[in-house]
């Protein structure tokens, strides 16, 4: 975009390189190397000599294994949509500040500081068959018999929502409240009602933030592991791809096969990110086009 003049270039680039170096090193050591090593491992099955795609072939021909991909998508996609939508709604509503804002924000953010395990214990206790939730609803006569909210799909969704909502909300709140209120005000004076302002003006301006929120929540949900074990049915309905990889690595000690599963997981996460980036482009274009021509 911006071009440095010829004389400035070398100096600027040198500065930029020095600043980028630590993060570059970090990415190389903590991400690129393990990832490449994982790919290498996955291509060298234990029982064979030399390179082979055998692990991948086994994974995609074994229904017990490959259906973990769908199970994981089935958890990650709805969870991401629910988390981001709720966080966006709340952040949008709070963009101009509200009464008791700090208190409410603190309460919302508390779950982050508790850690996954404690949170899971809490959910088990509260939503379990003998927990408060059912005690109250049964006591009030709202329910005839307890719902099954834990050790299944719902349990995992609950847990993921509580872990991811606060940080997603905070991120979006920062993003939304950073948009100059006079932009919204000028749209109002030009004849746009609240809904039109949201759709035509604010949504495109928030799109980058929403896309990042989607990406982060999706990647985190796709790797779901402790919640799927503690609150789900790790041998059935919530046997996610991370569990499959874990079992190969630490129950069957087949590191090569485990690596292959991990690589598959990484590829699907990447594919998810790509879709999100494409959707974001469309969203911005749709909103601006809608204003341009009809």
């Amino acid at each position, binding site marked *: 975009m911006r071009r440095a003049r010829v004389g400035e270039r070398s100096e600027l680039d040198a500065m930029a390189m020095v600043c980028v170096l630590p993060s570059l090193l970090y990415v190389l050591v903590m991400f690129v190397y393990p990832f490449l090593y994982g790919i290498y491992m996955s291509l060298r099955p234990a029982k064979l000599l030399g390179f082979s795609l055998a692990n991948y072939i086994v994974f995609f021909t074994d229904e017990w294994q490959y259906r973990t991909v769908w199970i994981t998508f089935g958890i990650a996609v709805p969870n991401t949509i629910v988390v981001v939508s709720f966080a966006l709604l709340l952040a949008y509503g709070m963009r101009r500040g509200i009464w008791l804002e700090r208190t409410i924000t603190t309460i919302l953010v508390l779950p982050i500081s508790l850690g996954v395990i404690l949170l899971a214990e809490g959910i088990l206790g509260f939503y379990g068959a003998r927990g408060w939730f059912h005690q109250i609803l049964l006591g009030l006569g709202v329910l005839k018999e307890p719902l099954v909210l834990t050790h299944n799909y719902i349990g995992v969704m609950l847990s993921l929502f509580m872990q991811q909502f606060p940080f997603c909300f905070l991120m979006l709140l920062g993003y939304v409240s950073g948009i100059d209120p*006079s932009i919204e*005000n*000028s*749209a*109002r*004076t030009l*004849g*746009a009602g609240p809904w039109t302002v949201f759709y035509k003006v604010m949504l495109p*301006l928030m799109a980058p933030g929403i896309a990042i929120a989607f990406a982060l929540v999706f990647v985190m949900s796709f790797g779901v592991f402790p919640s799927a074990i503690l609150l789900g049915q790790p041998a059935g309905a919530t046997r996610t791809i991370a569990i499959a990889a874990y079992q190969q690595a630490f129950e069957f000690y087949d590191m090569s096969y485990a690596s292959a599963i991990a690589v598959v997981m990484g590829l699907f996460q990447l594919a998810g990110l790509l879709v999100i980036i494409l959707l974001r482009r469309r969203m911005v274009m749709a909103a*601006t086009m809608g204003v341009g021509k009809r």
Partner: protein
Amino acid sequence: MKDTIESLRFRITKRFGTKTVLKDFGLEVRGRQFITFLGPSGCGKSTALNILAGLIPATDGDVWIDGERIDHLPPEKRGFGMVFQNYALFPHMTVYSNIAFGLQLQRRPAAEIRERVGQMLDLVQLPGFEERYPSQLSGGQQQRIAIARALVLHPRLLLLDEPLSNLDAKLRIEMRAEIKRLHTNLGLTSIYVTHDQTEALSLSDWVVVMRDGILMQAGTAQEIHDQPRNVFVADFMGFRNFFPVQVASVGPEGVVEGTGNGMRIRGRTRHALGPGAAAVAAIRPDDVQVGEHLGGPNAFHGKVDIVEYLGRENEVILTLEAGPRLWVHTPERVVPGESVMVVFPPEKVIFLPPDGEGVSA
């Protein structure tokens, strides 16, 4: 063009928590005028404008346009145009889409939109800028697009909140003329917020001077300039020299004489000041005459303290023999330490009630 309004009347009170920002701030004006809200920073000008636009609710009061009460209407139903201090263009839209935004919401035919946007760009003298994004425009260009975006809808009332404060001095004067030209050519009713008295005087048919959310004086630019009603407005309008006096005698046609600090000052007043009343005599630095040969009433001796060269004239600060300091603008050459004679022409001296009084519409 759709007709502009015939009359505007409002009276508003606004409190933020316990802080009263506008106190019974009211006005009644005819349409097709250029009205300015003038006052120092924080006096509530923007708040008043935003309440008129419907962007923030008033704590109490009402707004009437052409005999119809409109303060319950949301901003999008008021048919006003607003230009913001920071322009507030939509950064994700081109200049074309920015200006077309309101027309598209009204579902105008595409051909009409195209034509009207083109006309507006010609009007603000930026033809050919359709495909640019706001980030590719200079401050002055953004300002013009913001004005075009508001004007293209033929607003019945145009609200401008310090629209020139982010521009450099030269561009500010150019844009000032531009705004006045558009206002006159299009027969608009405009309310303009500023803290710059020159801007207010040069643009306005009707000036409203505010202080701490209270209306201090409203009138034509000339009235406000020549006959400020109290010390605050006088100060804002460039009266720099204030002498507390006690009224000694009152003559016909507002002629009044007062004494204070061993000085006897003659001037005029529009206030009912009886003999013995406390008052303040005020004169602008430009109206004080300097020279040895002068005499008559209101002649005083003083010693020059500081001389500053301003270009066409000097700003001189004197200490009068009687004690008070005096600011003078004069083309005369004087040097610090010199003794000089100064004269306040009686028709240029105004007598005002003491500070804190004389506040009313």
